[in-house]
């Protein structure tokens, strides 16, 4: 049962969290907000951006602010699953008998930074599957529960594709959000340089414990969602499937595989947190629309036509939102109303996007100024 104190505490904590993160991370407001929402909602986050935009620093700062054990795993091609999960080693007891003893890996921490996750082999990447979904690790037939709260914050570089292994669909689906980390603006860049000239030290203070974070999650889960809003959110997820009953034209044209039910769960969980952070006690259509980009963009498998036409997943999500809004006689989101679908499509056809064509078409990232201007919440283009 949520009490007035819980609500009050949630509000205070969320404000403190953002304030402390702001001390170490300049700019990247949408990325920070998205990461915090995902952490409160209990989801994992995949941060995608070119090197040097502050991905790792953000994750480290989060670890400090939440006052939780933090482990960093640098993913490389020779990284083995046991390096992530831990393994049984032979140890001798006091009596001189040799026994197997489990040596926990870095995954047995609360916040995991999986840096450059796409550089590890699929075998090692899949070592995280169980941990990310069930929050357990099974080694030598023995399942061990991970500490709560448990988060995986992974980063990947969309430019360098040599020697990388694109994340499998199952792995991608386990990330609640995929956040695009853009280049900082000129003002942000000046602030970053000014700050780091003085000191490189991270100064954020811990303001939220693990228990408090779990309490915040519990509080957010109590936020009611009107039936109409819930239906709209599920329709949005279903509309990304080209063969579903409410498939949109965009999905039929550009999508090979749509979002999983996990996307619907993530959308509602995150929308509740977002509503409460905004001081609202109900989920609005605008929450769903804003969160649809980070929730759906990595769960949509593009077809050949989309790749050939260089249509980005964000553009498709925008088209889907427009069509579903129209179908439900809802006003189109302001970001979409100002930028028609054709413009969204064009935004994917930038030099940066052309410079980084990916095999599955999902890594259409642009880092030029034009695209940055069009980015809204959570780095959506």
């Amino acid at each position, binding site marked *: 049962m949520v009490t007035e104190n819980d609500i009050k505490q949630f509000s205070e904590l969320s404000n403190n969290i953002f304030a402390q993160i702001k001390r170490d991370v300049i700019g990247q407001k949408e990325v920070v907000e998205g990461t915090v929402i995902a952490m409160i909602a209990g989801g994992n986050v995949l941060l995608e951006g070119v090197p040097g935009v502050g991905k790792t620093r953000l994750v480290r700062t989060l670890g400090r602010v939440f006052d939780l054990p933090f482990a960093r795993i640098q993913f490389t091609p020779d990284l083995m699953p046991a390096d992530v999960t831990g393994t049984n080693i032979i140890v001798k007891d006091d009596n001189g008998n040799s026994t197997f003893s489990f040596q926990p890996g870095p995954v047995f921490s609360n916040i995991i930074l999986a840096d450059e996750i796409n550089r590890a082999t699929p075998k090692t990447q899949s070592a995280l599957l169980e941990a990310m979904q069930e929050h357990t690790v099974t080694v030598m037939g023995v399942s061990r529960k991970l500490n709560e709260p448990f988060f995986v914050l992974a980063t990947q570089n969309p430019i360098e594709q040599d020697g990388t292994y694109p994340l499998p669909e199952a792995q991608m689906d386990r990330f609640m959000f995929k956040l695009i980390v853009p280049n900082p603006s000129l003002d942000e860049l000046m602030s970053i340089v000014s700050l780091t000239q003085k000191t490189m030290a991270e100064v954020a203070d811990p303001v939220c414990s693990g228990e408090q974070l779990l309490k915040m999650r519990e509080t957010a889960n*109590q936020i009611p969602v009107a039936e109409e809003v819930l239906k709209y959110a599920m329709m949005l997820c279903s509309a990304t499937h080209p063969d579903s009953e409410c498939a949109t034209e965009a999905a039929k044209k550009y999508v090979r595989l749509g979002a999983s039910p996990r996307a619907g769960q993530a959308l509602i969980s995150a929308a509740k947190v977002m509503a409460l952070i905004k001081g609202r*006690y109900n989920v609005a259509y605008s929450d769903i629309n804003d969160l649809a980009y980070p929730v759906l963009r990595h769960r949509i498998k593009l077809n050949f036509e989309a790749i050939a036409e260089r249509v980005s997943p964000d553009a498709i999500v925008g088209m889907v939102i427009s069509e579903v809004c129209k179908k439900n006689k809802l006003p189109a989101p302001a970001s979409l109303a100002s930028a028609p679908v054709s413009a969204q499509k064009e935004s994917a056809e930038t030099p940066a996007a052309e410079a980084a064509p990916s095999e599955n078409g999902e890594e259409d990232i642009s880092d030029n100024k034009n695209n940055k201007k069009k980015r809204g919440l959570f780095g959506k283009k």
Partner: protein
Amino acid sequence: MANNVFKKYRARIAREGILKSILLSACIGLGALSLTVLFSWFFGFKGGLYVGLGLLVGLTALLAPLFYYKLYRPTTKAIAKRVDELGLEERVLTMVELENDPSYIAMRQREDTLKALGSVDHMLVKIAVSAALVITFGVGVLLGCSAITVGSLYVADVIPSGVSLVSENVLPKTFTLTYSVSSSGGGSIVMYTDDWSNEQSVSEEVIVTEGEDAPAVLAVEDDKHIFVGWSDGVTEAYRQDVNVKGNMDVQAIFLKYAENVEDAESDRFAPPDIYREPRDNDNQDGETDPDAPPWPGSESTEQLQDPENLGGGGNGPGGATQSDMGNQIIDGQTFYGDTYEDAHSEAMDRLGSDESMDDGLKDSISDYYDSIQQDSSKTGDGEGEGESEGGGD
């Protein structure tokens, strides 16, 4: 609770529903009015205007409440959605759903919603009618006004009915052309129809579309009659009226030969005097004694066609008569004698004495006889020449 909160919003949205219901039912009423009045005007029913107006009022009054209760009566959820459109971010919708939820979060949500509701004015909920309904209503009003105008003008006898207008202006005009034999008779009319068949009668009537040509007709004279001309002045027996612009009724005029002509006909096959023995029963004025044996000219055709019976005399039209030397072929020319002169003089006498005959007709007949006389004179001239030539020989 929701009802109390929504009271002013409900009243406003209900007004919108009533307006929509009235508009929709009025559209149907106007449609019925238009159809009724226009059909009535077209088929010439003057009461249609009043029936249509009655339908407009009746249907609007009947359907408006029906539409309101079935389609446009605002539900609490619908009101909540409308109010949320004022920027309340689905607060009201959620509040309606959590109306009976006693939890703390539901209570806070209601408080938050009421607070947000206090910051908006219910007048901001705009009474909105869909463009399609407005356009439909506009078209309906336009049609209804047009129909009422037409119906009123028709009732006031300012404009004719639609059927009349169509038949007068749209359908092509037709005219009746009557070709007949005048009351005096003496011939018949042959009409050559499109299928090249022809029929012969005393009167032919044909309907021709304006501007088209009538079928050809021919005035055929009976025995002992001659075609004089048509009553409209046309002298040719064969005629075809082209580019018909109106009704027409013309008679073919035939004239019977004079009595002496008939007598001459009966005597035409009689041998010339030069071959004939004088007979006792011949009187001075050439009349035939009924007791006397007949002249070859009065015998049967078979007898007449026998050259032996003719005694070498000519036969056929213009044959010689008993009383003159005409109708003989002399040196390849037919000698008509004074047959035509007699006929001409008698015709002229009749024309002079018959006051009932039209002057134009008299002139036509006179011209005709003059032309015959000229032909006869020519023939006589030729004959004279022949004789002189023959005499020379």
